[in-house]
Structure formats: C-alpha cells, structure tokens
C-alpha cells in the first residue's frame, strides 16, 4: 500500500512538471505585462521593476528559476498584490472555497445516493421516473442559470435568504451557493448510483442473500450499496473538477471570497505568479483526489489489487 502511494506520487511529479511548463509558457506568450498601467512607466523605473522580479533575465532562465523556487515550495511573490506572496494569497482565500466545495460534495453524495437507491428500488415506477427526470434537468441546467434564477426567486422575490455575500460563512449565506454547486453533482451521482444499484441487485450474491431470508433493507444497505457506489468513487476526481468550475460561477454571482476569482482576475492582469500558483494548486489537488479515489476503491473492492 505505502509503496503504491509512493509510486503514484512519483508519477505525479512529471505530470505537475508538464502542467507548470505549459502554464508558464502560455502565460508568458500573452501580450501585455503585469506592470502595464494607464500611465506609462519611465523606462528606468520599468527596468528596475523588472529587475526586482527577475523578469529582465531571458525567459529560459526565468523558467529555470521559477521551477527551482517551486521545487523548494516557494511560489514567488504576487506581481499585483504588493507585499503578498502567492502562498499568502492561497492561504488567506482557500477557506471559503474549501467550505463551499466540501459542503456541496457532501450534500450531493448524501442526496444523490439516496435518490439513486430509491430510483433503483422502484425501477420504472413513478418515483424512478421522477428522480431520473430531475437528474436530466440537473445535468442540463448549468450553474450559471440555476444561480441567478434561485437568487431571483428565493432571495429577491421571497426574501428568505440573503442575495449575496459571505458574512463570515453564515449558514444563511451558504445555503444558495451550496445548493447551486450541489445540484449538478446530485444529478450525476443519482444516475451513477441508480445504474450501479440496478446492476448489483441482479447479481447472484444478492439472490443468495434473499434466499437466506435476510430482510430487504439489510440486503440493500449491507450487500448492494457497498458494491453499487463503487463507480461513484472513480467519479471523485471529475466531481472535484466540476466543483472548481462551478465555484468560478458561484463566487461571481454570489460575490463570495475564494480562490476562483483570483484566477480569472490574475490571468487578465497578467499576474503570472498567482496564475501559476493556482494552476499548480488545483492540479495537485486533483492528482491527490484521484489517488485517494483509487485507494478508496481498493478498500471497498477487495478484488482490486494495487500494484
């Protein structure tokens, strides 16, 4: 097990390296510089500023320097936010993103699995059709449609919840963003659960369990569910990617603090180091989640051998 984890982490390094390289040169190919402003800087001042950040060196040299920094865990200073390093920005802003993402995935998992199980047990009956219709809607209605519509109806017209803002993560402020983030995931998870459940319920060992006279609820909970949610585990990586994408929209609509906003703004402002830091952070996050998913898979399914 430990050896497997080590191997996977070792493979992750070239991946991250590729990510960093691609992002670095793409960012640098963009016209403009982080020090552009309405007022033109004096050439001497500009040269000084560039020298300060080592940007007067040839691009290849800068790339090597940057890689050396990253290898030591130093993501460099932000070029736009004075006196802040990229790590500072990540540290100060990850909390809302984390809170939103975790709550959304947790709720999506609980609701999605329950709906999927109900649908599978009532296959081709009303409950199933309703759940599947909702699931299709959930997949087809993008976050940037649900978010404004929910704000319009629930927050603006009915006034039940605040329309926007973070308010230190108060529950009322969390409800709408988390719902918006969770809905598409609920749709996908319930579909996956239903498909897995239907397949498993037809398996021989379920028939054996029934023949032994075990109560249906026990069969569902103990025997079927465990096997049926296996496909969900492999969905963990893509789910996380989906949440990140969704959070870009949600942060914008609900005016929340968080990491997503920095990415777009920094990219537009050519804040190279912040953009690179974000890319590295998210790529690493997804790599780790994929690894966790594979480990979890092996724990749940003893037939899978990690090698």
């Amino acid at each position: 097990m430990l050896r497997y984890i080590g191997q996977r982490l070792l493979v992750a390094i070239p991946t991250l390296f590729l990510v960093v390289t691609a992002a670095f040169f793409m960012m640098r190919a963009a016209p403009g510089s982080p020090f552009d402003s309405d007022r033109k800087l004096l050439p001497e001042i500009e040269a000084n500023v560039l020298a300060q950040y080592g940007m007067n060196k040839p691009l290849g040299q800068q790339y090597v320097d940057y890689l050396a920094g990253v290898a030591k865990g130093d993501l460099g200073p932000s070029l736009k936010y004075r006196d802040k390093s990229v790590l500072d920005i990540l540290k100060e802003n990850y909390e809302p993103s984390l809170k939103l993402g975790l709550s959304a995935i947790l709720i999506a998992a609980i609701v999605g699995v329950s709906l999927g199980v109900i649908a599978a047990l009532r296959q081709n009956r009303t409950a199933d059709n309703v759940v599947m219709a909702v699931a299709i809607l959930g997949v087809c209605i993008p976050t940037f449609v649900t978010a404004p519509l929910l704000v319009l109806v629930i927050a603006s017209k009915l006034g039940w919840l605040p329309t926007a803002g973070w308010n230190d993560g108060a529950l009322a402020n969390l409800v709408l963003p988390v719902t918006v983030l969770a809905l598409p995931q609920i749709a996908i998870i319930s579909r996956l659960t239903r498909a897995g459940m239907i397949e498993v319920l037809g398996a021989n060992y379920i028939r054996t369990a029934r023949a032994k006279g075990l109560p249906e609820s026990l069969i569902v909970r103990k025997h079927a569910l465990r096997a049926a949610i296996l496909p969900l585990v492999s969905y963990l990586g893509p789910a996380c990617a989906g949440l990140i994408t969704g959070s870009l929209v949600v942060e914008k609509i609900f005016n929340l603090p968080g990491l997503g906003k920095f990415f777009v703004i920094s990219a537009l402002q050519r804040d190279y180091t912040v953009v690179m830091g974000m890319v590295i952070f998210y790529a690493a996050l997804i790599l780790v989640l994929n690894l966790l998913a594979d480990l979890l898979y092996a724990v749940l399914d003893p037939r899978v051998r990690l090698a």
Partner: protein
Amino acid sequence: MRRAPVASAPAVKGRSLWDDARRRLLRNRAAVASVATLALLVLAAAVGPYLTPFAYDQVDKADVWMPPLTNGHLLGTDALGRDLLARLLTGLRVSLAIGLVATTVSLLIGVAWGATAGYVGGKLDEAMMRIVDVLYSLPFIFFVILLMVTFGSNIVLIFVAIGAVEWLTMSRIVRGQTLTLKNKEFVEAARAAGLGRTAIVARHIVPNLLGPVVVYVTLTIPAVILAESFLSFLGLGVQPPMASLGVLIAGGASDMELAPWLLVFPSLVMVVTLMCFNFIGDGLRDAIDPKDR
C-alpha cells in the same frame, strides 16, 4: 468469391446494424421529440435572424426595458433597447455553431489520436495515452481561460480552444474500440482473405467505430455549448454586442431584478437545447449499443 453486382432484382436485404439502430431510436419517444425540437431550433437559428424586424445589435434608446409583447418586441428589449428575440436567435446560432465546429475539431483530433494509438499499439500507444492521462487530470477550464487570455477572445479561438480540450474522451473511446476491434474474428477473417491494412481500417474498423463516436459526438456538442457559455458568462468568451446564449444569460443575470425576461428566455432556450442533445445522445446510445441499457 466476389459478390456479383446487383443489377435489377434486389437481393435479400439483411438488417444492418444501422437499420436496427434506427428502428430502436424511432421507438424512443423522448429522442424523437428531441430530434423534432432540435430541428426547429436549428431552423430558427439558421433563418430566424433574417426574419426578425430588428437586428440583433440595433440599439433603440426609446424602447429600453420593454417587457415582452410591447411595441412589436415579442420577447421584450434589454437596457439598450435591443430586441431580445433577435438577440436570442443570433445567440442560439452562435452557440450552435460553436458547438458544431468545436465538436468537429475534437472529433478530428480524437479519432486520429485514438485510432493511431490503438492500431499501432506498443510504445507509441503507451506514450500517447499517457499524454491523454496527464491532460485528463488537469482542471481543463484553467487552460481554456489561459488560452482565451493569451490570445484574446475571438470566436475562432473559442472553437479551437474548446475543441482542443474536448478530444480527450473521444480519443480514449476510439482507442479502446480500435483495440477490441483489431482482434475481432471478422477483422482476422478480412486479413485472411487478403485485405490490405488500409482497407481493413476503412471497411471494418471505422464503420464499427462510428457507433460509439456518433453517440459521443451528440454528447460533446452540449458540453461544448456549455463550456462556451461558461466562458462568455465569465466575460472571456464571445464578446458583446455579438450574442451567444452565455452572453445573454450573463446579461440577463445582471439585470434580472428589472427585467426578469432577459434571464428567463435565454435560460429556457439553453436548457431546452441541452436537453435535446442529451436525450438524443442517450437514445442513440441505447439504439446503437443496447447492451449498455
């Protein structure tokens, strides 16, 4: 023995894979209804912009914030007095076009990549699929955003950027399919019959690849439309005054307190379009590969 050319008498016609698939598809009511709805939407997007009395970018300072059904504006107007119906039809056209073109890009890259990897096999296969794995584990949206920022938001680039990202799954599907097909008995038989490599690929591999590829194409188009709208929503995609569904929804979301119709109608069109594609994709999958049900 070569088959004699059929002159007049129609030979006994076997039911091909595609005949079967068509019959199964026609029995799927959701898919048939979606095809009809989508045909209407495509028609509206194609000819609609020429039929509306207003141009999509025609500003009318006298008629701002008109609710639907006033002053000849069927769906109302926006903050600049532009006719929503005209903008919606144009936006739908742009979104559909992006969906089609970007999907074609992803199709070309994906099929070429996947078929090469699958057919050649060995080290090359391993290297090519490793690249796909690496790209897969990236938050792709970041790279699209970087692309848009790097090269500015023009429509052609949106096509290419999204297409260049969406080919990954396509190449995996094509490779997997090629691998299984390569070792099938009918390919072996064709080889034994002396058919050349190109002929085998063209006559036996590609037609059998087509099924899953077609299914995946119908599922890629909505994904692309969604990705474009997402970019436009963040202000990185299609630039106003040009319209796309994403641009319209973003505009509608910021004005929804004053003019909810600006949000509701574009959202509705978007959702219906995506649903149609998804139903057709699901229907095609069930029709072409019934064992997946």
